[in-house]
C-alpha cells in the first residue's frame, strides 16, 4: 500500500470530520464518521498487516483531534480493522451491501467502546457533599452510527474507484481460498 496516499486520505477525512461534525442535526456530535469509513476502506482492501496498522493510525490521528481520552479511537478502529480484514476473503468489496454492513458493524463497535469508556469513567462533579456523575449522551452515538452506515455506499463506492492510487498489494491466499480452488 502507498502510505503517502493513505496519509492524504487520512488528512482529508479528518479535516472533513472536524469541519462538518457540528452541523448535522439533530444533535451535536451526531455527524457521520468519515474517518471510520476511511478505516473500513483500508481494512477491506489492504493486506492484513497494513490494514491493521492503517486503521490503528487513523484512530491515533482522530484521537489527536478530539477532547476524548487518548486511546479510545485507536482501540475501536483496531478492533474494526481486525473484523473487517478478517472478512476480506468472504465479501464482495464493491457491493453496497458490503459497505453498509461493514460500516454498521464498525459503527456499533466504535459506539460500544465510547459508551464503555463513558460508563466506566464518567465525569464526576462534586459540590460539598453532593456528587453528580455525568456520562456522555447515547443519542448522538446512535445517530452517528446510522448516518455513517447510510452514507457508506456512497463514500466507500467513491473511494473504491481510487483503489489504484493506493496500489494495494494482492491479498495472501488463505486456507479457505486454497481449499476452494482445489475443490
Amino acid at each position, binding site marked *: 500500500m502507498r502510505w503517502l496516499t493513505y496519509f492524504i486520505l487520512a488528512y482529508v477525512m479528518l479535516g472533513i470530520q472536524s469541519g462538518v461534525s457540528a452541523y448535522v442535526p439533530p444533535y451535536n456530535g451526531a455527524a457521520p464518521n468519515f474517518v471510520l469509513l476511511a478505516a473500513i476502506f483500508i481494512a477491506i482492501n489492504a493486506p492484513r*498487516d497494513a490494514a491493521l496498522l492503517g486503521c490503528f493510525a487513523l484512530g491515533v490521528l482522530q484521537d489527536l483531534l478530539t477532547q476524548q481520552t487518548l486511546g479510545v479511537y485507536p482501540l475501536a478502529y483496531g478492533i474494526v480493522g481486525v473484523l473487517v480484514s478478517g472478512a476480506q476473503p468472504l465479501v464482495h468489496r464493491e457491493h453496497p451491501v458490503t459497505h453498509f454492513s461493514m460500516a454498521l458493524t464498525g459503527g456499533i463497535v466504535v459506539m460500544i467502546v465510547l459508551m464503555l469508556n463513558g460508563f466506566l469513567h464518567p465525569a464526576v462533579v462534586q459540590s460539598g457533599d453532593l456528587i453528580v456523575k455525568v456520562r456522555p449522551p447515547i443519542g448522538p452515538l446512535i445517530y452517528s452510527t446510522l448516518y455513517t452506515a447510510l452514507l457508506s455506499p456512497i463514500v466507500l463506492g467513491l473511494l473504491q474507484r481510487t483503489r489504484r492510487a493506493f496500489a494495494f498489494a494482492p491479498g495472501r491466499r488463505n486456507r479457505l481460498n486454497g481449499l476452494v480452488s482445489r475443490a
Partner: protein
Amino acid sequence: MRFSAPYVTQNGNPDQQTRMSYLRFQHVFAFLMVLSLLCTFIAPKIHSRPQANVQAIFAPVSVPARRIASWAHARWASSEVKDDASPEHPRSLAEIERENLDLRVALANVTAQLQNLKELNKDRSQLGSARTLCTPVSVIAADTGNRESIMLQGGQNIRNGMEVLTTSGVVGRVDGGGLLGARVRLITDPGFAVVCSFNRYGNGKYEHVPLAASTVVGIGNGMMAARMMHMKDVSDAHLQENDWVVLDDREWSEVLQGWRVGRITSIGPRRDAPGFADIRIEPSSNLMQLHEVMVMNKK
C-alpha cells in the same frame, strides 16, 4: 513500503512466508492494542498537550468544510431566531428598539457609577467591560468525536485556562493552547462545571431570582443541567422556564461575574435522586457552530 520483513520462500512458493515475520507484526499490533486499552480504561486521565497544535494542521480542509456545512445548515436546517426576553411571545421591532434605548441609558448610568466606585477603590481596577480584555479569534474546527470542543486559530497569545466568551454568553475555557492553535472546552461538554445564579429578564426589568448559586454541569448534546438543588427550594423561589442562568463563580474573572451562561428550558424532578430538581439549561446559541469567539487574554 511493507511492514513485515520480505517473505522468505519455502519450496519456491512466493506466497508462503515464515512464521517469524508474521509473529513479529502480531506482537507489535497486540502491544499497541493493549496500550490503547490501558489508556482508554485504566489510565483515562492522560491528555496530550500538543493536540492543540496538531489540530491546526487540518485547518486547510476543516475550515472550507465547516463553511460549506454552515451554509447548508443556514439554508436548510436553521431555526427561527429566539427573542430571549420573551421566547413564547416574540415582541415587535418597535418594542425591541424601545428596550434598546432603555438599556443604553441604564448601561451608561451603571458605567458611570462603576467608574466612581473604581476611583474610590483602586483594587477593583479590573472591573469594567469584558470586551476590552478580549481578543476576537476565529473558530476553525470542531471536535471530531462525541465531546464538545472547538478549535481556535493560533497566533493570538492564547494560553491554557483563559476564558472564552461571546457577546451573548460564556463559551468555555481554553484547554490546550499553542502557537498553531488552541482548543476550547465548551461549557456544554460532559463534566464541565461552573457555579451560576439565576436571574429573570422580562417587561424591561432585570431581577435576581432568590435562589442560592448552584453548580451547573455540561451534559453533552449542547445542554447543561443543574442537579444539586432541592425541588422545594426551586419551587419556593418560583424558578421557571426561560429564566436566565448567569455566571457566579469566583474561579472565573471578576469582570465576567453576571455574564450569561444560558436559559432554563425545563424543570423537573431527578429520577435518580428523589427530592432534587433536574433543571436543563441551553446556551443562547449552538456553541459548536460559532464562527468567532472572544478570548480573555489581556489584563
